[in-house]
């Protein structure tokens, strides 16, 4: 009896330790990032860092302005989602509601494989196919905002598809049956009942996809063109925050290195804000759905 109790205590302690470990990891990464990055603002005003597009870290009088990369990250992510969300939603709905068993199994395993492909392979595919196609269709060099967004859209698809499907399946059966019983067609049921009910789950999926898009480095590095200037348009070259860090990381020193950590801080704050905003939005939709049901 005594032994069992102490074993249980031990197991509990171990679990607590693991839980603390992951929390500590987040904490330490945050502290480390800010500790290494913040000293930059003693030499470079924050406003100049955030709102200047002049990035010349190795010049005689170095300039650290990352606006181009903030814009780059923003454009690339927005455009990638604009491509991926409609397609991902459609595939998710199809898998959850319309596909026959055989077809849905085949599609699902294809999507799973898509999720498992390493990003460097997406990059190679982007160089070989996507940049060539966008060059032929839209002109420019092919190493562009557009190419990077398309590659990212393909990479974020699996997340959006999976989460959409799962949240559609999680909608209580009574709702669907009730809708059908009231005479709605299957299609009306999907877009009037199922999708709105699963909304919060779907939004969560989109946010996960957005996180992947903002954080992705290798694939965009290979097709983005990587010029340290703001994108001149869809076919213009783009460098994102992550690309900027990886391009200079291997050799940067002193203030230049610090500026890369500061770039990391901006990325970190970006993603944090994104998560918070979405969590707030989710809470609101959930409570409004619940309130609606109560009324």
């Amino acid at each position, binding site marked *: 009896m005594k032994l069992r109790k102490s074993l249980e205590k031990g197991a509990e302690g171990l679990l607590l330790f693991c839980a603390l470990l992951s929390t500590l990891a987040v904490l330490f990464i945050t502290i480390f990032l800010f500790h290494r990055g913040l000293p930059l603002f003693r030499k470079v005003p924050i406003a100049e860092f955030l709102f200047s597009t002049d990035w010349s*870290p*190795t*010049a*005689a009088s170095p300039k650290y302005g990352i606006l181009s990369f903030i814009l780059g990250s923003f454009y690339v992510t927005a455009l990638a989602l604009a491509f991926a969300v409609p397609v991902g939603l459609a595939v998710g709905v199809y898998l959850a509601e319309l596909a026959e068993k055989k077809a849905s199994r085949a599609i699902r395993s294809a999507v799973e494989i898509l999720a498992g492909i390493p990003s460097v392979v997406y990059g190679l595919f982007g*160089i070989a196919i996507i*940049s*060539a196609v966008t*060059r032929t269709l839209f002109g420019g*060099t*092919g*190493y562009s905002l557009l190419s990077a967004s398309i590659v990212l859209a393909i990479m974020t698809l699996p997340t959006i598809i999976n989460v959409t499907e799962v949240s559609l399946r999680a909608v209580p059966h009574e709702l669907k049956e009730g809708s059908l019983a009231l005479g709605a067609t299957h299609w009306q049921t999907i877009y009037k009942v199922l999708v709105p009910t699963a909304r919060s789950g779907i939004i969560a999926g989109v946010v996960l996809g957005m996180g992947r898009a903002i954080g992705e480095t290798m694939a965009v*590095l290979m097709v983005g*063109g*990587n*010029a*340290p*200037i703001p994108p001149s348009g869809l076919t213009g*070259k783009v*460098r994102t925050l992550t690309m900027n860090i990886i*391009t*200079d990381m*291997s*050799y940067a*020193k002193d203030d230049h290195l610090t500026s890369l950590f500061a770039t990391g801080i901006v990325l970190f704050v970006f993603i944090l804000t994104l998560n918070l905003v979405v969590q707030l939005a989710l809470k609101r939709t959930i409570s409004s759905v619940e309130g609606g049901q109560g009324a």
Partner: protein
Amino acid sequence: MKRLCSAGIALAFSLVAASGAFAQLSGSFTFGGSTTVAPFVYAAIEQFQKDNTGVKISYEGTGSGAGLTSLAAGQYSLAGSSAELSADQLKTLVPTTVALDGLTPVVNKSVKLSNISKANLAAIFTGKITNWKELGGADSKIVVVNRDESSGTYKAFWEIVCQKDYGKAIAYTKDAIVAKENGEVAAKVASTPGSIGYVGMAFAEEVIKAGGRSLMVDGVKDTIANVVAKKWPISRSLYLVTKGAPVAGSVEKAFIDFILSAKGQAIVKSTDFIPLPKN
């Protein structure tokens, strides 16, 4: 890879095994730096390890700038560099010239041009000339492919080509595709119409294989003979660098001596770089 293989074959036939020459050396060593010197350093390490069975050397191709930083910080005991060392670096670091290299401007096959002047080359890479029309070519935009700032080639090209007209401070056009390696420049120039880039002479072949071409500069062709004769306008020295002078009896010194030996210079040659002139 092909270069490494041919280096291996050349060695197998032409070199007498010298096992035991440095029998007292042993241990594991990490060198690193310039990606330009990597092909002959890899091949040389392979042979050097055969001659000194107790020695394990790895070489990390991280770029000249990164290599020199790591050397100064003590992470490497030897660094490869394709860039001239700054006065500041020369205070603690000692470079030894081990090979010569030429830089070759390469263009996509869509560019109908076979010769360019050094001044025009500088004008393109600083963004003063942006259309092939201005050089007598077709009316199409010039797509500049440049290296990242850590690259020794990036600095060397500025010093040799642009510095005279545009000053000491590097001021390449920023409207350029940035590639992280010689091989990436070759791949991007080969696949992007209207593009121009520069690579180590050994990499020009990659572009030519893919249908692109190398340019003559001021009417001179990029051949090894022209580099040795100092006629090729864009040539440079490649270095192995140590912190302080190489110490007699150390692996670093033995390795540098090995590359400077006839055997080592044969490896340099078989990997398409240019051996030091004998004298």
